[in-house]
């Protein structure tokens, strides 16, 4: 029998793993690895397709608690969970986005930013505004010349394998 939606063995297994994370460094590494492996359209694996959202949420919850335990107020507002200056990290990504005119590169920058820094890794006060600036540029680039390419060309550029149609 396939797994149930809410209570299932996959979630039980991850609850155990997450419970064993006892330092911020371990929590951050686990969350980062998980996000790259199982989330976003660029993920490496769809094995956890039905449960990734729930597991990511639980990992984020644990990292937030570990951050609260190990960071002082100053660090909490200004540093990423990796210990780097949050605004400097954000400025680097914003500069990279400002320099590009390619929509696919902009897409990788934006999704990459979320993969690496989505809270609780980066403080919300820095993350939200950076995400807005990156999203605005990405939307601008995507909408320019929206209908220029015929579908067949667009499929090629996106790199899809056409099974039918």
């Amino acid at each position: 029998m396939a797994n149930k939606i809410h209570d299932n063995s996959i979630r039980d297994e991850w609850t155990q793993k997450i419970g064993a994370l006892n330092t911020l460094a371990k929590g951050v590494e686990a969350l980062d690895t998980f996000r790259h492996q199982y989330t976003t359209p660029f993920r490496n694996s769809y094995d956890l397709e039905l449960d990734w959202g729930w597991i990511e949420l639980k990992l984020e919850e644990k990292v937030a608690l570990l951050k609260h335990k190990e960071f002082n107020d100053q660090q909490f507002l200004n540093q990423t969970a990796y210990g780097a200056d949050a605004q400097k990290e954000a400025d680097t990504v914003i500069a990279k986005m400002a320099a590009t005119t390619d929509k696919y590169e902009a897409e990788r920058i934006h999704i990459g930013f979320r993969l690496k820094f989505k809270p609780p890794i980066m403080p919300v006060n820095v993350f939200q505004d950076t995400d807005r600036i990156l999203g605005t540029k990405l939307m601008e680039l995507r909408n320019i010349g929206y209908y220029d390419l015929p579908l067949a060309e667009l499929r090629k550029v996106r790199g899809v394998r056409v099974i039918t149609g």
Partner: protein
Amino acid sequence: MSISAATKAATDALAANRAPVSVNAQEVHRWLQSFTWDFEKNRTKYPTKYKMANETKEQFKLIAKEYARMESVKDERQFGSLQDVLTRVDAGNRVHPKWNETMKVVSNFLEVGEYNAIAATGMLWDSASAPEQKNGYLAQVLDEIRHTNQCGYVNYYFTKHGQDPAGHNDARRTRTIGPLWKGMKRVFSDGFISGDAVECSINLQLVGEACFTNPLIVAVTEWAAANGDEITPTVFLSIETDELRHMANGYQTVVSIANDEAASKYLNTDLNNAFWTQQKYFTPVLGMAFEYGSHFKVEPWVKTWNRWVYEDWGGIWIGRLGKYGVESPRSLRDAKKDAYWAHHDLFLIAYALWPTGFFRLTLPTAQEAEWFEANYPGWYDHYGKIYDEWRARGCEDPASGFLPLQWFMENNHQIYIDRVSQVPFCPTLSKGASTLRVHEWNGKKHSFSDEWGERQWLTEPERYECQNIWEQYEGRELSEVIAELHGVRSDGKTLIAQPHTNKDGKLWTLDDLKRIDCVFKDPLKAL
């Protein structure tokens, strides 16, 4: 001085020099305008490609006090009618049983739309910089809160005073079972509150409200009244009185960006995507709700659609915005084709998937079939014959052990889900314009039913990340999924959904489904 002379003197003095008992509404509104702050940068929390002008006007010029006075009068009329007259005449039990089921869908779904519209207009309030424009959006926030309550109240009223309350009450608990919820959330939720703030306004106000509230909120009252329902017109027409203000807000959103050069680069693309997003769901679902969810017919959906979507909105309303560079969506012609057959295609699938709903569906009677054939020539040969076969196999009777979904499997008619709209379609049975397109990208297969949606996905695939019912329940048995996801009535075994509205007919239970052993299978896996 006599008392009467003193009174007269005082009255004369007041007439010449009126005491300031109140502040004129327009005076307050002028005062609001003085809050125009000249931002160096309009720093909003939400991303947008557009810049809203700082001096944008707003047509209704409402202030909170006037708003509250107006709405309280409307509420008194509406709730007074419902709680007094309509209860005394037993209005809930005078509704045709088929229409009673339709209102489970319409009012529950519209409640979700109104709820998301609260957030959408709050977002626009944050994004605009002109105080008048902000004031217009703020009035809409209040409206949307009112409408959310009203839609909830319609279902509450039907539950308390009407027939078969299962599904009117607590429909949300079934939200992960059937595909109709996901498509609805694509238009009402994602469309209204995700992405560019102005694009959200275009989805909500320029398309959702200016285009589809006429068929959704006005036409539904005609169909309701024709089918004995006086509850829905009482509430929905009260809702519609506010919608004009929302259409005006959408108009002003476009006016506010008209002088920004971004408008010429992005606006028509955003409008086309918003229109296709909204119509892809509303065109088939509203047509299905009206024509298959009623016994007494008003007019063919294709005529309603042509009048309000194609001519009134696509021609006149968008035409008025032409001076700001707005063009009728380039997908309008394709949408027009959908308005003829798409709702018939959808009902075929909806009926086949009836156990996954939270309402009762009914196959067209012989009399209704005649109406369909007269208004959609060719209907019987394509759809009517199938319904006759299903009925002959006992699809309404739990003892028959027959689900129409089995018929699809037996005849190798695969049902796919469009990744972008979430609307199910069956390419081998579609009489409408749907065509199957399947792509594999980064190890995942995606199906699409039209060119416009495919382009939307190719442009921003991360927006459409989701699992459809086949992906979610692959390999699981149907009754087990329904039991886990709360699709049963209070006895814990009878399904909320049923394939008939016959009050003497037997109701299907989990055990009846289990005997059939219907297992979810993802058609994309076989490709």
